[in-house]
């Protein structure tokens, strides 16, 4: 079907608005990269001009001297493990909380939702004491478990919403076809929930990738630090010493790139035909 003139005008307007907004974001990303290649002087004196001589040394400094190379692997391990663990734990729970018929379902769901209202800084001291007792303080395992757990409320809440909005006749059809409830979950509901799962996976990945408060409290050893702690240390170094702002932006770029890649990769999967096929 060819779009009508009317539609074409609509799309033109849409394109201008989205293009403007998106363009500003591209500008931000380019600016961050540009800032990472400048000298501090030109960053502050001429913040919106191109660097005359790109200072790639900012990257090598951050990668080697500030240990971003090591931190990168730690972040990748912790965040990937947290997100995978999160899906494994949260998907079944969200499914049951959404589709199950048992007493206290609503209460249990609220119990998770309200968890999001707990200010994270209040958990710091008890968590440190508890993790020390079970020997998981200053370890990536401990950090992963905490990341997974604090992300549960958000993840379960969003996922149960996705499950709730799935058509229930599919479920009953599957039961009539002789599926047991495990099979309904695995073969019918889970594939349908895939876009939701992918979305929360990305949101959690991005959130945890940039998280620094919890890791600042739980991690001491330099070889166990994550990228966001690296950023944090670059940022706090501005006070009393060096003031290497382009170095900070080099660090930010290093942290930013994987999340952009992952987002682009996953967002492709999100809308792939698998999920739509289930509905049609």
């Amino acid at each position, binding site marked *: 079907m060819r779009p009508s003139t009317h539609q074409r005008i609509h799309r033109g307007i849409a394109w201008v608005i989205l293009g403007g907004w998106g363009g500003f974001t591209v500008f931000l990303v380019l600016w961050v990269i540009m800032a990472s290649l400048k000298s*501090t*002087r030109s960053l502050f004196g001429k913040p919106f001009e191109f660097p005359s001589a790109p200072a790639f040394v900012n990257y090598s400094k951050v990668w080697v001297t500030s240990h971003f190379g090591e931190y990168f692997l730690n972040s990748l391990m912790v965040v990937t493990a947290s997100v995978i663990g999160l899906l494994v734990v949260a998907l079944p729970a969200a499914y049951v909380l959404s589709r199950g018929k048992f007493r206290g379902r609503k209460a249990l769901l609220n119990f998770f939702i309200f968890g999001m209202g707990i200010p994270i800084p209040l958990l710091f001291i008890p968590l440190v004491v508890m993790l020390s007792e079970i020997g998981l303080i200053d370890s990536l395992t401990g950090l992963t478990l905490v990341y997974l757990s604090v992300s549960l409320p958000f993840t379960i809440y969003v996922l149960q919403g996705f499950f709730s909005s799935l058509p229930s006749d599919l479920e009953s059809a599957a039961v009539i076809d002789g599926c047991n409830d495990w099979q309904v979950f695995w073969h019918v509901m889970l594939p349908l929930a895939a876009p939701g799962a992918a979305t929360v996976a990305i949101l959690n990945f991005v959130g945890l990738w940039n998280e620094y408060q919890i890791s600042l409290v739980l991690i001491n050893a330099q070889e166990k630090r994550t990228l966001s702690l690296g950023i944090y240390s670059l940022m706090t170094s501005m006070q009393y010493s060096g003031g290497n*702002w382009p170095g900070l932006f080099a660090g930010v770029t290093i942290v930013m790139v994987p999340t952009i890649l992952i987002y682009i990769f996953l967002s492709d999967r999100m809308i792939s035909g698998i999920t739509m096929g289930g509905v049609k």
Partner: protein
Amino acid sequence: MLRSSRSIFSSMLAGCALAVMAPQAQASELVFWSMWNEPEPQAVALRAIMDAYTAAHPETTFSAVWNGRANQTKLRSALQAGTKVDLMDQDGDQLIGGLQKQGLALQLDGLVKADFGASLLPGVFDIYASEGKHYQVPYVYNSVNFWYNKEILEEAGAQEPATFDELLAMCDAVRKLDKYALVVDNDDTYALYYFSYLLERKLGVNALVTTFEDKTGESWLKPEVLKAAQMAQSLWGRCIPDDARGFQYPAGQQTVALGDSMGNLNGSWLPAELSSSAGEDFPWGAFNFPSVEGGKGKQTDLQVALLSMIALESSEHKEEAVDFLEFLVSEEAQKIIVEQGSVGSTRAGVAWPAILEEAYQAATNATAISNIYGGVGINYPDFYTTILAPEQNKMFMGQTEAKAFVEAMAADTKKYWEAK
């Protein structure tokens, strides 16, 4: 064969000698939690000092955790979990309200040499003492002075001012170059540099704290306090450009590096913070806050923000820890701090980096030292953070009148003490 048996023999001898001469010296590892991040020059200097100490005392080694600025807060959770830490460092004023107030810092009196304080610059060892008891060893010296570009001052044909009126005259001279003499960043603490110094120049050292400690609040209503507030406000448009109200850290201070502003009232860390934008050969100069007409304070009175190391009360290696603290401010160690850390030393007679020469003179000749921002933040951090700093900022930024500000402070001070 011969060589190896000899070396075994000599090491046996060495072992005997050690055992005979120092029976108490056992291998111990001191755990040090630091406010520095590992790549910072100050951390590099501390690493070198620890290595030098270990070289002289092979039985003592160090394990350093480079936590960065949130060190004390991080240590709080760790201590609750029973983590063993022997040494830590942080801004001296923050330690007073934290570990020191909680009795978790090791008291040094009786453990260090009786004349320990005498080897340091005037006032340094005593400034963070509580009721005459010493807990901290300040090892980095930061002072609050005007930091400026000497070339611009010369071009303007002005002099370093000795009085507030001369400061205003200097600003006028610089205005003729179509530049402003001073600049600020707009956070809550910045403005207090001016007001607290003006008050101290009017009423003498620690004037802000004494004003606040008058529990009736009446002291705020003294004409000198109002005058100090008005003098701070009068800098706008004449010394400080109006658009600086919008400078968010570090935009304001960067204009000094860029040559658009002549200077900034700031800590002696400013040349370091601006080093990468100002360049190596920036013509830094520094002078103390000028005196005011008829004031009790002298221009040589200095506000400082020292960085201190402490030993923890819970340390199992108190003796080594204290010994290291003494070493930290020895001439050998302080020279390392100056050379590798590029910061001011707290020890008398150890010259600071060339760029900080004038601050070094100011510290050596200080007639009295008091705390940065007027010191209210030290013993009354809650009042300082939630009321004084923000209200003062509103006054300085022109959102409230000077008169309304002192009246509000009088009322808030009274309320604060009534609630105590």
